[in-house]
Structure formats: structure tokens, C-alpha cells
């Protein structure tokens, strides 16, 4: 009896908080017909926002993948003072308000900031793609690192040492031994990184200056549409992002079981 109570309590909570709201967005987006929704997401402004979102992700995700693996290797395979602090700093983007992240970049690259002079040399960071990429990189830094670190710990160094004794170069060891063992963890991290990169709002809102048709990503566009009372446009674009999110969840499921397989 109490078991059913708990089950239905939990499922009811999930339905009210998660399933109904997300479902309603789909209903609202398509209530005037699919053609209407399609028109709303294919306006030049919406398409530009989608392109920009994908462009920012296309730069930030590979950067955080490569450096995330290196960071994980440094954290697990080397000893140095202050490693605990570095660990906390890697996690910081998970716990810090995105607005604070955006503001920090704004103050660093803005007028009067330490690197504000770059703008005078013609290198635009703020209100341009580089600033948005930096903000996204900051926010999505932890995901690959956090997925790879536990796997690196678990596989240990025995195989790497064996390869080393047999004369393999560090690069060969990494490519032939380390990378195959962590590849599913990397894949999982990349999926999470991509999802967060595409959806990032707060940090990008601060550094982009939200110039319509220039530095407006899809999440910013959605807010703009909603606030200018084009709710059906906002809902239609939300569905695009929600579909990407659902795709992400499916991809996570596809990657995860194999990761467990390779561990055992």
C-alpha cells in the first residue's frame, strides 16, 4: 500500500513539474498548425539565432573536450600542490550563477578592464562571438573532466606502464591505451557539454549585448520573442531547443550502458 502511495506520489510530482509543462509547450507550439510553427522557426532572425547558437557550440565543445581530457589527466595522473583547489575550481561553473560568469568576463574584457585594450586593437571580445564562446567555455568546462576523472582512476596505470616498458611513446600510449578506455566517458561528457552550450542563457545574455540579428543566440531570441508578445514564436523556437534536449537525453542513454560494459 505505502509502496503504491510513494510510486504515485513521485510520478505525480514529476508529471506536474516536468511532463505537463514540457508537453504543453509542444501543444502550444503546434496549436495553430505545423505550418505556422515552421514559419515561426524559419524567419531570418530565428535562423540566424540558431546558426549562431550552433557556431558557438561548435567552437566551445571541441575546446572543452580536448582541454577537459588534459585537465582530467593532470588531475588524476600527476601530483602537485593545490590539486584540491584546482578540483574545486573545475567544479565552480556548476555552482556559480551564470550571470556572475558573464559579469566577470564583461569586467575583464570591457572598457577599463585588464584586457579591455584588446578592443582598441581591433580584437572584439565583448558583444561579439569570441565573448560568447568564452562564456560558454566557462559554463561547460566541468562536464568532460567530471566524466573522465573517475574512469581514469579506475583503469589505473598498469597497462600504460606496460606499453611504456615495451617502448611506446607517450603519444602512442595515450592513443592506443588511454583513449580507448575513456572514450565512452568522453562521449558522455561531450553530449552533456553540447546540451549546456546550446542552452546557455545567463552568461551569454551579459556578454553578447544581445544585438538582434548579430549576437542573439536561440535562448536569447526566445526571451526576446516572449517579451515582445510573440508567444507562438517563442513556443515554436522552444520546441526546437526542447527537441535537442530530448535528443540529448536519448544520446546519454545510448552512451551510458556501453560505458559500464567497458568498465567491467
Amino acid at each position, binding site marked *: 500500500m505505502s509502496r503504491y502511495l510513494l510510486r504515485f506520489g513521485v510520478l505525480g510530482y514529476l508529471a506536474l513539474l516536468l511532463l505537463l509543462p514540457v508537453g504543453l509547450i509542444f501543444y502550444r507550439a503546434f496549436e495553430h498548425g505545423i505550418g505556422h510553427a515552421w514559419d515561426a522557426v524559419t524567419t531570418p532572425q530565428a535562423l540566424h539565432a540558431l546558426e549562431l547558437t550552433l557556431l558557438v557550440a561548435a567552437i566551445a565543445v571541441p575546446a572543452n573536450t580536448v582541454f577537459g581530457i588534459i585537465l582530467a589527466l593532470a588531475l588524476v595522473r600527476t601530483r602537485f600542490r593545490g590539486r584540491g583547489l584546482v578540483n574545486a575550481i573545475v567544479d565552480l561553473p556548476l555552482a556559480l550563477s551564470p550571470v556572475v560568469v558573464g559579469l566577470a568576463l564583461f569586467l575583464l574584457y570591457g572598457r577599463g578592464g585588464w584586457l579591455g585594450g584588446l578592443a582598441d586593437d581591433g580584437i572584439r571580445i565583448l558583444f561579439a562571438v569570441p565573448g560568447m564562446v568564452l562564456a560558454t567555455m566557462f559554463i561547460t568546462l566541468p562536464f568532460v573532466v567530471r566524466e573522465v576523472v573517475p574512469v581514469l582512476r579506475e583503469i589505473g596505470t598498469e597497462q600504460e606502464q606496460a606499453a611504456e616498458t615495451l617502448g611506446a611513446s607517450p603519444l602512442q600510449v595515450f592513443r592506443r591505451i588511454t583513449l580507448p578506455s575513456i572514450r565512452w566517458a568522453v562521449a558522455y561528457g561531450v553530449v552533456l557539454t553540447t546540451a549546456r552550450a546550446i542552452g546557455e*542563457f545567463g552568461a551569454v545574455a551579459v556578454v553578447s549585448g544581445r544585438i538582434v540579428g548579430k549576437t542573439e543566440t536561440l535562448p536569447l531570441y526566445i526571451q526576446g520573442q516572449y517579451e515582445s508578445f510573440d508567444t507562438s514564436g517563442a513556443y515554436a523556437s522552444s520546441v526546437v531547443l526542447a527537441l535537442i534536449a530530448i535528443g540529448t537525453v536519448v544520446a546519454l542513454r545510448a552512451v551510458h550502458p556501453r560505458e559500464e560494459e567497458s568498465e567491467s
Partner: protein
Amino acid sequence: MASSAAAVEQPAVVLHRGGGSLARGVALGYLSIVVLLPLAALVWASRAGGLGEFWDQVTRPEAVAALKLSLGIGAACALINAVTGTAMAWVLVRDRFRGKSIVDAMLDLPFALPTIVAGLTLLALYGPSSPFGIDIAFTRTALLAACLFVTLPFVVRAVQPVLLELDEEMEEAAASLGAGSFAIFRRIIFPNLFPAILSGVALSFARAVGEFGAVVLISGNLPFKTEVSSVYIFGQLQSGNGTGAAAVSVLLLLISLGVLLGIGGLRRWRTRHDYV
């Protein structure tokens, strides 16, 4: 699992021969450019007007009200998640029903869904055009709902692996000795889950205190009523008060760092289980 501690202590021969210092240098360099340098600039800017100015900025009534609201929402959200998250983890691990794996997958959705979309979906259901006639837009209840949405997975995903590993024999032994189900939960299950619940709760709290995207549409941003710290910071920056924005941001930064160092301490204390 058990070998992880031993693996950590093994000398890392491969990376020690040159590769190690290179990896470390590149990693720390990247971390400095992407994370540390902007944060240093933030702290620097917050004290541009001197310590007195910093204090004046963080003690402005509107700033204090926003911070109190953020902390209150964060605490409420963390407490609710402690209960609902543990219950959800329990149902997902110990209960059996059709479609359980779909529910399990669905729980990742708040991680993957952009926060602005989360806010918009809640506004569609519980806002002015609600099909149920429930309109909580621009209230603190709406803020709480938005934060509960985005932090939904934290406690579940922290508790789930621990519960999976928990040996049911202990519970059977307790039951055979005459313990009731409440006594078993209180004396055996809860103490085992407690560290995981706590780290999930701490992350929920940190995330809820700083949430922006999910609350920006739904809160209405009424000063002293529904304006949380992140929205206050954004507003101050827009109205040209960079110092004030930076000062409150430094407070949020300290709270986040405190929470993370707390979780780090918790992780060391809880040696048996890996934290996800």
C-alpha cells in the same frame, strides 16, 4: 570500485616522464585563462571604490532583499529536493513498474533543457494563460517551482548509485530481528544515504541560489518581492552600476566556493562511494 583508492596512489610513470608537466602546464594554463582570470577581474572590480564602497553596495536594501530571497529559495528548494529526490531514487531503484526506464531517462531532461525553455514551459502551465486556471506568475511560489525544475536531478542522481549498491541483507537482518519498516529506514537506510543526500542537496542549493534563465521570465523581477540576486546583478549592470553588480557577485562567488569546498570535504569523509 574498491581499487580506485589504490589506483590513485600508483606512481604515474607515463606522465611523469615529461608528459606530466606538459599536461599539467596546459591544463592549468587553460583553467587560468578561461576561469581564473575573469574571476580575478571580477574581484578586482568589486573593490574598485574601496572597502567602504563594497560594503555600501552589498548592504543596499534592494541588494540585501534580493540576496535573502535567493538564499531562502535555495534553502527551500534544497529541503524539498532532499525529500522528493530521495523518494524518487527509492522508487527508481526498489520499485518495479512498466515504463520505469522512461521515467529514469526523463529525469535527465532538466539537465539538458535550456533554462529559458524551462522557465517558459512553467509559465505556459502556471502563468496567465494556464489551462488549469492556476496563475502563479510573478510570485515567490513561481520562483520556487522554477528552481525545483532545474535542480530536480541533483539529489536523485547522487542517491541512486548508493542505493543500488546498498546491501539488502542488512535490511533483511533488521527485519528478522523485529524492526518495523520505519525503524529500518531510520536506522539503516537513511544513515547510508545521508552523505549522498547531503551532497545532492548542497548542489541543489548552490544552483538554485544562482539560477537566472529559468526565473527571469516567471518572476517578473519586482524589487523587494520577486527579485533574486542574479536578476539584481543583471539589472545593476544594465543601469551602469558595475561596482554594485560586482560586489554582490563576489558574495555569490564566495557562497558557491563554500558549498563546493563543503562537498569536497564530504567526499573525503565518505570514502566508500564515488560521487557522481
